[in-house]
């Protein structure tokens, strides 16, 4: 799941927002895991822990999202990193894809 951070604004700082073109290096790609009902819940939890280094609780949260809602957005990354994660998840035969974050 995507994590967002609020930028810190300190006195005297002028905050500007700039429209940047999306490139392959920007974190603009979602790694999504879709439900394969054949996969064991414990297995999916285990894979999330191994691939992302998550604690069991976080891995279970996403596993349950996949199980109950049919999919879970696991992370938001640059194109290269998202590709890497999709490949890692597919090595474990999970149904994972990457989608552009519109």
């Amino acid at each position, binding site marked *: 799941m995507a994590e967002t951070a609020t930028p810190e604004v300190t006195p005297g700082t002028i905050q500007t927002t700039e429209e940047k073109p999306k490139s392959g290096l920007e974190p603009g*790609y979602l790694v999504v895991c879709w439900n*394969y009902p054949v996969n064991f819940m414990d297995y999916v939890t285990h894979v999330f822990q191994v691939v992302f280094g998550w604690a069991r609780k976080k891995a279970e949260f996403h596993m349950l999202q996949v199980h109950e809602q049919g999919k879970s957005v696991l992370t938001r990354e640059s194109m290269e990193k998202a*590709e890497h994660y999709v490949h890692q998840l597919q090595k474990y*035969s999970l149904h994972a894809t990457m*989608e*552009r974050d519109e």
Partner: protein
Amino acid sequence: MKLIRVTKGNLLFQLGKREKNLLIQVLGLYPRIPPSNFRLSKTGQLPDAEANQRLLDESLAEQRAANRKTLQAFLTDARRFTDTESGPRLSMSPSELEWLLQILNDVRVGSWIILGSPEQGMELKLLNEKTAPDFWAMEMSGQFQMRFLEALEKREV
């Protein structure tokens, strides 16, 4: 199958007499997932989508070929299985176990796809003489997978 000893770099399993053959049979089915099943994106809205998909396909083909070789070496390694009075023992490292989970899940998911990707609880409606081998592969790979996952959990406790 039962985990009987865990050391830092090794896990030792006691197998039933028929389990060794069953495990070898199941692993021999790898790979089962049709390559076309692996898509980089559902929407296809990625830059250079076709080229990236081609790269994924190539990487997958290489990985499967490497896995087949590793599997062959894994099963023919003289230290892998040792016979005891109570049945064969299977020895492997934690990283080999992690890799074996990937192989087993390929067999499980691939068998399920071959069965037509049935919804949960609907599988048995498809059971007949023709589909029985795929059911067998799906269930058997799942059984081994669960035992190995339990072993990993015990190791972490």
